[in-house]
């Protein structure tokens, strides 16, 4: 990496006149090395083989030396994620599509489960067994509300159909 820090500050009146290295608000959380004055150089670790699709922030030039390989982008959610990564972390067009992709991904997950012959046990996944053990009245209330809402929806839909 090229060092772009100007070395000569004589054209800036008063530059560094009040500098106090001890007044570092990050001290002692950061061991200040002042290495940035020499430019940002470090010996990069060996690059992990990039044999899956790794989306990387456009605020950096490359893929980090190591990266996670969990769930590469795929399907419709993957398309949305690729779009998101065209925009910087500074942009809502990065984060909001990612949140949308996450929701689409949930539906893809259910479809994938069915495709593999698995019927997701939503109640177990939501930990309702723990509710039964530690919050029985809350669970009964939750089931009651769910039943009520479902019944109301069915009645409403049936009535509309009949009329």
């Amino acid at each position, binding site marked *: 990496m090229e060092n772009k820090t100007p070395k000569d500050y004589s054209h800036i009146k008063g530059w560094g006149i009040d500098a106090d290295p001890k007044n570092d608000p990050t001290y002692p959380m950061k*061991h200040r090395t002042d290495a940035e004055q020499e430019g940002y150089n470090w010996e*990069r670790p*060996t690059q992990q083989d990039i044999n899956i699709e790794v989306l990387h*922030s456009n605020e*950096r030039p490359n893929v980090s030396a190591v*990266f996670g390989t969990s*769930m590469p982008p795929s399907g419709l959610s993957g398309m949305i994620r690729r779009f998101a990564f065209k925009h910087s972390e500074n942009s809502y067009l990065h984060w909001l599509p990612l949140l949308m992709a*996450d929701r689409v991904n*949930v539906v893809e997950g259910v479809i994938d489960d069915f495709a593999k012959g698995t019927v997701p046990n939503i109640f177990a996944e939501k930990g309702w067994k723990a509710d039964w053990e530690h919050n029985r009245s809350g669970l009964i209330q939750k089931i009651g509300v769910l039943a009520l809402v479902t019944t109301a929806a069915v009645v409403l839909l049936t009535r509309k159909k009949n009329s």
Partner: protein
Amino acid sequence: MLAMNYRGPQRVRIDEKPEPKLLHPQDAIVRVTRSCICGSDLHLYNGNVPDTRVGMTFGHEFIGEVTEIGPEVQKLKVGDMVIVPFNIACGKCHFCKQGLFGNCHESNSQATAVGGIFGYSHTAGGYDGGQAEYVRVPYADVGPTVIPEGMDPDDAVLLTDVVPTGYQAAEMGGIQKGDTVVIFGAGPIGIMAARCSWLFGAGRVIVIDKIEYRLEFVRNYANCEAYNYEEMDDPVVFVKKTTDWMGADVVIDAVGAEATGNLMQTITGRKLLLQAGSATAAHWAVNSVKKGGIVSIVGVYGPTDNLFPLGNVVNKGITIRANQASVKRLLPRLIEHVQNGILNPKALITHRVPLEDVADAYHIFSEKLDNCIKPVLIPPSAR
């Protein structure tokens, strides 16, 4: 192997997944013996962190046995029992060299604002985490630390995140002898921050939350004052009143995105996701610290924006310090504290749950059932 599998907001299950492989010369494979659920895992669990993909395994607080090492690993050997810091750090980049191991630039491609974190969405690098039987651990010579002989594994697993984060919260507060420190949040991090505030010479430590059993716990564990904000008209006025109407010298936000206590923040931050989580605790922190005071933020927020009283930060001349804990930097000192009996992390563990019951453990922790403070998952091979 068995591994936690995220299926969508508030839906997780245990599944069979392929065992991880060495993908880099500095990788190690670790057989997990303890793995915690962290309060910040709940942000993922609730679907609040962008780029949390279905099928991922969470878990950034774990310890275990090294079962395999890559050719460039020199400091660890197969059979070592290790504490694995939650942050993945190369040890070579500009930031690691400054001790900012939570800000490594060579472990996360997806976002520049945060380094890699195990099992914490693709925004933190896309690594599968430790709520599983095995984990791939990159840069094995940098982060992982061999567990000292005789250390209780329940103490060791809390040195991966809870203890360093609580300690760093107090450290970032720049606490001077005699200072009044207010901590919002009586979860594991808030409890540890309260305990550690004394280590820096605090004169008074006050914890504010709404969960009675946690307030009772922190009162005893950290020998501090603890108050329920639901019993106050306004927590900021309460802090002012109890500090001669000046405000606290140091305020720590140990809550983050899941905060309650302000209806507008809850609706816009947690229900509608119009902001990066509810910023209630950060809001209260800025307003209850004294002029010229320090606010230390370790509560986790999402990467977008929050409603936050920035004008008061300026007008009061507040210093805000915040970061993910630099676990590797802090570990030697904290191991000493645990070994000398100054800190007793394992007292925070209330639930030891088989890994197979991960969905119930998440639900218990998330809903604060059964007086839960800290749940630990134990895989079959470690039982």
